[in-house]
């Protein structure tokens, strides 16, 4: 079978010489992820924002869109001020500063991005109301959650329920703005993820002992003549002390499913929050006849980084472009969070699944000497991690402070209102 390495005497001997410390599987199959996005179902039959079984009113705030002048007036600005603040001719709406004034619409002009509860929930940010969802039964309870398109009950995906009607995530597969943005980044060479599956049995399609790992690679994806990611390229594993997800699984008729939940795994996330933590993580993949791999990685992810990620992506820009009042995202994630790492504690995590499409690829050991012999941990080969200094605030990213763009050196120019974070906060990252 293609790219299936059988344990011949020759190969075993050569691999043993090359890397005596690594376990060797009876078979190994390898892929590179060419697309991954939150596992959401678009319930409409047409378009990208139309009403559907998932979102009967269509994509949130699509009809009508948010009247930001009205929002600002309700926040205490005069209509003249609000119109000026939203006027494209207003120089403070420059590409550098965005629409920074939109931040200060909370109670007592608080910055709503870092004080989301200072602004009321709009009531227009509706959750998914359908019963069908993609994903994985994370808690083993078939009586809760959604039903999969194939009829499997107990699918846990409250991330979809909370945000599935937001323009960022709602569209047919591969067409939502979020999926396009972060996959384009990956497909244009920003980052790469490879998948390695290996087993001890004779038949990769039916093996009770499968290990599947998801790793970073330093080698870029390459597009083919049709603009798709090209098959059969070679990628090295880049050992990472943190971003590595290895699962215990089994395969039945080509379907690889977890045999146990992994307490905690980390991997690259297709979102502004680049590192995805998954608790009680599981997989559900299918090896296709054409050599591709498709399925899900699921688990409970911390929801606060999701909100912070969008705030740090320039809150006013995200709000304007994706038809959302970001505090609504905060409220929705908080409402539908369904997992507390500490029993009885705060529900800081929300059930989630990534839909993953991977194509055949060669995956090499980190030193590129040979193809990988098995899905295993490479953390021991990762460079020593330099202890990061905890940021004073999570709301600082690149040139963004508190969700708004600051100029070079932290300067914020705001006219006509001098609505800006205090200088001390810009410098310290705290308020």
């Amino acid at each position: 079978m293609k790219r299936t390495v059988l344990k011949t005497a020759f190969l075993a001997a050569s691999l043993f010489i090359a890397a005596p410390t690594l376990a060797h599987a009876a078979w190994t199959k390898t892929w590179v992820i060419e697309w991954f996005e939150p596992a959401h179902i678009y319930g409409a039959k047409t378009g990208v924002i139309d009403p559907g079984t998932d979102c009967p009113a269509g994509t949130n705030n699509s009809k009508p869109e948010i009247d930001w002048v009205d929002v600002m007036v309700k926040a205490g600005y005069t209509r003249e001020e609000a119109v000026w603040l939203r006027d494209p001719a207003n120089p403070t709406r420059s590409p550098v500063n965005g629409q920074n004034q939109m931040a200060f619409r909370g109670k007592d002009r608080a910055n709503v991005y870092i004080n989301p509860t200072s602004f009321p929930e709009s009531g227009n940010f509706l959750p998914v109301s359908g019963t069908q969802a993609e994903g994985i039964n994370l808690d083993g309870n078939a009586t809760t959650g959604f039903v999969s398109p194939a009829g499997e009950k107990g699918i846990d995906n409250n991330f979809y329920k909370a945000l599935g009607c937001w323009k960022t995530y709602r569209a047919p597969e591969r067409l939502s703005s979020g999926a396009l943005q972060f996959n384009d980044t990956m497909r244009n060479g920003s980052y790469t993820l490879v998948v390695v599956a290996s087993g001890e049995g004779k038949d990769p399609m039916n093996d009770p002992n499968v290990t599947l790992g998801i790793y970073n690679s330093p080698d870029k994806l390459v597009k083919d003549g049709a603009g798709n990611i090209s098959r059969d390229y070679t990628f090295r594993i880049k050992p990472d002390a943190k971003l590595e997800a290895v699962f215990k699984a089994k395969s039945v008729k080509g379907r690889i499913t977890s045999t146990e939940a992994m307490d905690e795994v980390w991997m690259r996330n297709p979102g502004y929050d680049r590192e995805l933590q998954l608790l009680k993580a599981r997989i559900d993949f299918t090896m296709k006849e054409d050599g591709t791999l498709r399925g899900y990685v699921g688990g409970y992810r911390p929801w606060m980084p999701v909100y912070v990620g969008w705030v740090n992506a320039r809150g006013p820009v995200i709000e304007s472009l994706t038809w959302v009042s970001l505090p609504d995202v905060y409220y929705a994630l908080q409402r539908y969070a369904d997992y507390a790492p500490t029993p009885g504690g705060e529900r800081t995590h929300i059930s989630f699944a990534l839909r993953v499409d991977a194509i055949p690829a060669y995956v090499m050991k980190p030193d590129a000497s040979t193809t990988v012999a098995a899905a295993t941990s490479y953390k021991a080969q990762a460079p020593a991690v330099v202890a990061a200094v905890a940021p004073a605030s999570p709301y600082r990213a690149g040139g963004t402070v508190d969700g708004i763009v600051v100029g070079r050196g932290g300067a914020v120019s705001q006219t006509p209102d001098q609505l800006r974070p205090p200088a001390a906060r810009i410098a310290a990252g705290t308020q």
Partner: protein
Amino acid sequence: MRKRISLALLAAAAVAVSGGVGMTALAQSGAAAPATIVKVATRRITESQYRNTIRDAFGPEIKINARFEPEKREGGLMAIGASDLSITSSGFEQYFSLAKSISDQVLDPKVRDTHVPCKPADAKKADDACTKAFVEKYGEMFYRRPLTAGEVAARVKTAQLGAAGAEDFYAGLKLALTSLLVAPEFMFRVETAEPDPANPKQYRLDGYTKAARLSYLFWDAAPDAELRAAAASGALHTKAGLDAQIARLQASPRMQDGARAFFIDMMQFEAFDGINKDPANYPKFSQAVADSAREQTLKTVVDLLVTKKRDYRDLFSSNETFINRHLASVYNVPYASAQEWAPYTFPAESQRAGILTQVTFLSLFSHPGASSPTKRGVKIHEIFMCEPTPEPPADVDFSKVQALDKGTVRTRLLAHMENEGCASCHRVSDPPGLALEHFDGLGQLRTKENGTVIDVSAEVEGKKFTGAPGLAKYLRDDKRIPQCLVRNVYAYGVGRPTDERDEDYIADQTKAFGAKGYKYPELIGQIATTPEFFKVRVPSGATPVPPGPPAKIAQAPAGANR
């Protein structure tokens, strides 16, 4: 205020001073001043020769961003077509723009001290002595001979005007350099002959022409200082002097440049300029794959023939090559290296054998959406056996071979060959190509076409073989293969196609080539040491004139050097 000087006007003036191609005043230096000189050929330098000259003069940092004039293939080689080429007006604009760009880079204030051999007395004024030193130094590199006093004086005058107008010595020097770079004496190799003192009534190539022939054959570059010195001293007219220079050229790593240029020409790599593949059939094809394939074949050729000095015929059978990530994907093998390129040997099960089973040959000589045994077979005969195939008749019906969704190409070709007019050529051209049918139009391994198992058996002149390995053995044993290389090397070096008068020479050289183990570097040296390599065929109608300042060179009628 800086006065703008028309660069075009100045350059044109410089060209006028030199008289243009065919009216070139020739430097009269060397041990033996000839009584008369005859121009026997002009050959436009190729893009690689231009680039190599600039690199040799000013270093690899100089960026050469330009679209060069298209070259012309004649008698199987671009090197022969170069003798027929001129420069169009739009092409001259390109060269002129490039010359200005090079001048700007060379005389950029940050680096000019490394290029200018002197300091002007006053950087705001012209300095004739410094200009003269600069022009003489680089002019000799570009013209492949020392400049005449008139040629130098024209550039000094140009620099004077430029410096005065701009109040900047280096602005004037830029104009002088630009003028040199657009001079026909640089862009064309002017080959001249002089009376042979040892053979009255006979001509011999002058020393600088000999030096250029040697240098372009071995290094694809203009003669270096040592070779020019050997030309000036007359050493190249002696066996000892010639042998010494050939040995030096052969021993240099720059032989790789020469080999690359020769095989780019012989293997018709200009086809890469127009290569196109249907992404529906060959999604893996991309410009990166095309560029990689080209480089793979060149690396293979240079490694086998120049570095390892292997038997030329190994090109058709050796599976030693180099790959990168892009090619590894097409060949569907892992790329076990963190470097850009890595050595690789195809295993036996790959069914590959030699350069004919690399992506270059397999994809260049296929259709955009399908393989083509006919194209491949035709090119094997044309490129490696020197046996061109006639063009198909204008009214030929291709419909049966274009029905790509049925059967294999073999069955389609058999149907096509029901036309006896087609069959006569296809019987010769197709069998080698059919042996390569396990590789699709991109060069990817396959065993079936439209669900039908592909038959890769072939028979040529009663010799039966199967698949690429069988074809490799057939070619390796075919006498036409080394003989064609000898013919091409000779024609490439002298810039004209061989004819019946050369047959005995080609036969002798092929025999000697075999006696030395079919080593390519040996062949180059062997040919360069023969009198035929410098043999002068005085153009009919040429009227030798005595040299004098300025000396006029007799005009050769068009194509006379053929």
